């Protein structure tokens, strides 16, 4: 069953078109990897799925994005609910200038959890899930900025998990991580897939191959092709996909 259904999506930054006629359907409880060269529109596309592009002035969109059967670009859509249920981790870590604890508790507090022990529980679970707990459990009150780049990124993943979303959008979440942390995050994603739908942008072909069920290849704003990961990596339909994937090793 598909949970996200994108039809004829075009996106413009002012005059400049960044996405051209994208059509894709994303399965529930699966991991979809978005690949493609830098600047091809992966991040842009990802942000259309939870309407984060609303924040950028001058962005216009045509076409529809249906999530669980509703076009999220309709006027009467509640973007806050949408975004709560569709978590997002960005390409660059962006912790709030608050303590580690308050970063994680931020989302749950927004959505009404004030009970201290409940929050403590969420903070611990989320940090553990993002493989950060052991490193920070003694310094939860310290500012998030004193963490290393990779730690900050894991913090942001923990923060996204803390609101318990149904879909997770991740923009190169492991590009700043070392192999061990990466492996743990990947494990986590595979685990999460059982309950959540995950869309992940990655530059790491092996990562896409290891964890995703479906891979979508973008080029210059076009979705060139998408399909089962195995197939895309072994026998793509489009020569450009093949060029790109093999280019890695060329």
């Amino acid at each position, binding site marked *: 069953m598909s949970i996200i259904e994108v039809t004829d999506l075009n996106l413009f930054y002012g005059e400049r078109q960044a996405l051209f006629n994208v059509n894709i359907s994303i399965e529930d409880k699966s991991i979809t990897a978005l690949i493609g060269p830098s600047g091809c529109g992966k991040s842009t596309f990802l942000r259309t799925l939870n309407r984060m592009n609303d924040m950028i002035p001058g962005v216009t969109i045509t076409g529809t994005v249906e999530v669980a059967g509703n076009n999220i670009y309709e006027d009467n859509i*509640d973007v*806050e*609910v949408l975004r709560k249920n569709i978590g997002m981790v960005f390409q660059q870590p962006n912790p709030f200038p608050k303590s580690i604890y308050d970063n994680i508790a931020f989302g749950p507090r*927004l*959505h*009404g959890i004030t009970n201290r022990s409940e929050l403590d529980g969420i903070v611990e679970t989320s940090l553990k899930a993002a493989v950060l707990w052991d490193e920070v459990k003694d310094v939860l009150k310290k500012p998030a900025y004193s963490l290393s780049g990779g730690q900050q990124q894991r913090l942001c993943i923990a923060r996204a998990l803390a609101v318990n979303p149904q879909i997770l959008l991740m923009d190169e979440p492991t590009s700043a991580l070392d192999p061990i942390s990466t492996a743990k995050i990947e494990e986590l994603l595979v685990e999460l897939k059982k309950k959540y739908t995950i869309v992940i942008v990655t530059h790491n072909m092996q990562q896409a191959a290891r964890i995703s069920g479906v891979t979508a290849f973008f080029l210059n704003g076009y979705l060139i092709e998408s399909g089962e990961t195995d197939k895309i990596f072994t026998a793509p339909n489009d020569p450009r996909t093949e060029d790109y994937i093999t280019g890695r090793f060329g």
Partner: protein
Amino acid sequence: MSSGRLQLRKTMDKLSKAVFFLATSFGIIALAILLYNIISQGIGWLDWQFLTSFPSRFPEKAGVKPALIGSLWVIGFTAPVAFVVGLGTALYLEEYAQKGRFSRLIQININNLAGVPSIVFGILGLGLFVKNLGLGRSILSAALTMALLILPIIVVASQEALRSVPQHLRNASYALGATKWQTIWRVVLPAAFPSILTGVILAVSRAIGETAPLVVVGAVGFMSFVPNSPFDLFTVLPIQIFHWTARPQEEFRYIAAAAIMVLLAVLFTLNALAVYLRNKYQKRF
């Protein structure tokens, strides 16, 4: 996480937009009423003759020439002096000084000076510039006094501006082999410039409307000639306005209103450049 709570948050959000908008309107409306009051009284009296005449006991003959020119002289010296010293202080505190006792001492000093009443600056200016430095009751004394008065505004605004420039931009510059000053001049200042200008706008606005310290320093109430050097006696618009409003005859209140319009026009012209530059340089990171 009941939908009731969500509903509440949504309502709060909508409400807050209205509240924030109304709060903004509060200032705008206050200004509109003020301007309406001033303009409706003064507009009939504001003409070329008013700008080019000397004060007179007959309201219809009176003008603001010496006060207008005096104000321009004073602000012409005050603004650059305060800008350079203020920005210099901020740069020293934010970019050069060790965060220790000395910089805390300066910081407290600056915050404290912000709360010293303007007339006390007048007393200082009288003692320091007029008497000790022998500048006399001149434009220069007044301008320097005013510069000290508005210094804290520029310093504090500039400090905040410098502080909000992200560290990674500085790092990028240092890594290219830039010296400290090159980094400040080419990266930090351009990024901080808009907020520094806000400080300048607020400070100049304050300087141009002040009366009391200038009276102490020695601005005269009436003169029938225009100053033509920084060592001349002078008067300024707010003093002229002040004296006119104190007259018993009602007509003087109207020409006071006209003089206020002149003052605001001067202020807005001076600010226009700063506002233009601020808009040009303002970028969101």
